[in-house]
């Protein structure tokens, strides 16, 4: 659905050294997936979205969006993508319905009024349709901006920080709405700083810092970076227990913290019973067993803060 090959954008301003915002970005976003694009501030996420939405030109490289080539088929791309910009950017003096109808007409939507009604109702803003957007709360404005991005029923949706600055309730509503959109088969390119949000919504994530660091599913990234670790909570940790577990052939690593035994291994489902058996035989009382789950934040920080990561 989205394919980029060595996409690069360098900003050149008079009297300033060239600034490389995006360098040799090569990604493939599949149809119908939610693709998370994570990176620190200034990493080039917004620049990437702008290039893919044909708002700014790439310096080099190429990109295909919905089968259309960026730079050549810009009109076709603009018709097939919707964009939620970092700030809602609504016309504050105009009503919610009028704001949407402007964009419905610019996108050439056949029955603009019906489409406006559909999205205002869907996002719970129908009763406030005649109110000026300037009177809306942040959450309502964001929902309206989402409706604007969807008004022409695009196949691809670019969402730049959709829940930034929203209170937890509004953020939850927006996330639920994005989740519904995935159910409709749309491809969603999601830029976010909210790693919990990315973890919940994204099928795959790309970690990006001017250049692409890694692309994979959140689960695979955890496994690649940290392996799988099982934690055994014991009543007491007797001497020699760690060495005994380390002696098992399938155990990659074992260590103890207080009364807990942390074991890294490739296939816990197969080998946990063997470890439990060995521990019981060694006289250990096992209270709980569980898999240690690293957060996406751990993954992200590991990737972004490791200079050699590629």
């Amino acid at each position: 659905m989205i394919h980029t090959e060595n996409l690069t954008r360098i900003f050149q301003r008079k009297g300033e050294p060239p600034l490389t915002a995006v360098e040799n970005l090569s990604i493939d976003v599949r149809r119908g997936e939610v693709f998370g694009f994570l990176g620190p501030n200034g990493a080039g996420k917004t620049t990437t979205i702008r290039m893919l939405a044909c708002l700014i030109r790439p310096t080099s490289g190429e990109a295909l969006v919905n089968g259309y080539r960026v730079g050549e088929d810009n009109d076709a791309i603009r018709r097939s993508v919707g964009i939620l910009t970092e700030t809602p950017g609504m016309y504050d003096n105009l009503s919610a319905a009028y704001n949407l109808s402007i964009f419905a007409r610019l996108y050439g939507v056949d029955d603009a009024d019906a489409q406006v009604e559909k999205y205002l109702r869907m996002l719970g803003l129908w009763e406030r349709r005649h109110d000026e957007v300037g009177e809306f709360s942040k959450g309502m404005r964001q929902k309206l901006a989402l409706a604007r991005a969807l008004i022409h029923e695009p196949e691809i949706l670019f969402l730049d920080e959709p829940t930034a600055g929203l209170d937890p309730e509004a953020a939850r509503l927006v996330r639920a709405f994005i989740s519904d959109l995935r159910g409709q088969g749309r491809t969603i390119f999601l830029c976010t700083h909210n790693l919990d949000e990315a973890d919940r919504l994204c099928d795959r994530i790309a970690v990006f810092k001017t250049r692409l660091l890694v692309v994979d599913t959140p689960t695979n990234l955890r496994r690649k970076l940290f392996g799988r670790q099982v934690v055994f909570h014991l009543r007491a940790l007797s001497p020699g227990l760690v060495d005994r577990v380390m002696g098992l052939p399938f155990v990659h690593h074992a260590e103890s913290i207080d009364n807990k035994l942390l074991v890294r291994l490739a296939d816990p489902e197969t080998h946990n019973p063997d470890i439990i058996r060995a521990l019981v035989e060694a006289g250990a009382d096992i209270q709980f067993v569980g898999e240690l789950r690293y957060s996406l934040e751990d993954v992200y920080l590991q990737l972004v803060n490791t200079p050699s990561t590629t």
Partner: protein
Amino acid sequence: MPSPIAVKTIIRKEWAELYKNTLVLGTVVFLPLFLAALPLLILWASGDIMGGTAEAVGSELPPQMGDLCRGLSSGECGQLLIVSQFTLFFMMIPLFIPATIAPYSIVGEKTQRSLEPLLATPISTVELLLGKNLAAVIPAVLATWFAYAFFAIGARLLVASPQVFSRLFGPDDLLQVLVIGPLLAVFSVDLAIMISSRSNDARVAQQISSLVVLPIVFLFIGQLAGILVFNTLLTYILLLAAFFIDIILTYLSVHVFDRETILTRWS
């Protein structure tokens, strides 16, 4: 070929926003009324000084102005000379109103951060600027014409002599208001778009844009001082100049409005 739907949508949006901006709306409504009422007041005040013949004043006037008064009484001549100075006001209106509207139109998009979603639609730069241009030009031209019609009706009622009336609304005057006026409005909008494309502050853009009335002010002063007379030749020179400058400025404004630069600079 620009899409009429896109252009119409932008015009309607601009007007919807204009309608909510009392400062700009006030300028569109009251400035033309004021500038139309001012010469009418002078006509009314000078109504009782009519009398005598043109020859009585002709010797004291520059030759070009004396020609204007041929066949009129000194009072009629006085009325004509005073009021004809003010017809230049009707070329100031189409310059000033767009200079008030247009900066809000571009910089307003910046302050509301609404330009990025707008540029993400399939609208072309030409359609966007044409919509914004017409949204400022049409009210300016209509306001000028209404003010001029108001002035014409008032003048017909206040000026006793049909000769003075016919000289106040001669072919040159009609050409200035009906043709040069709209050309000046386009000139003013193009300039305002160029300035506001480079500016981050609507007020600054508006202040700079309003300097567009200066050439007409200079003409007004020149005419008052008797240095020049707005005759047929000068009218045609102004018509041609406005026409060609409009073409150049329209071309430049489209090129100065670089979507990418504006987006990245305004972020």
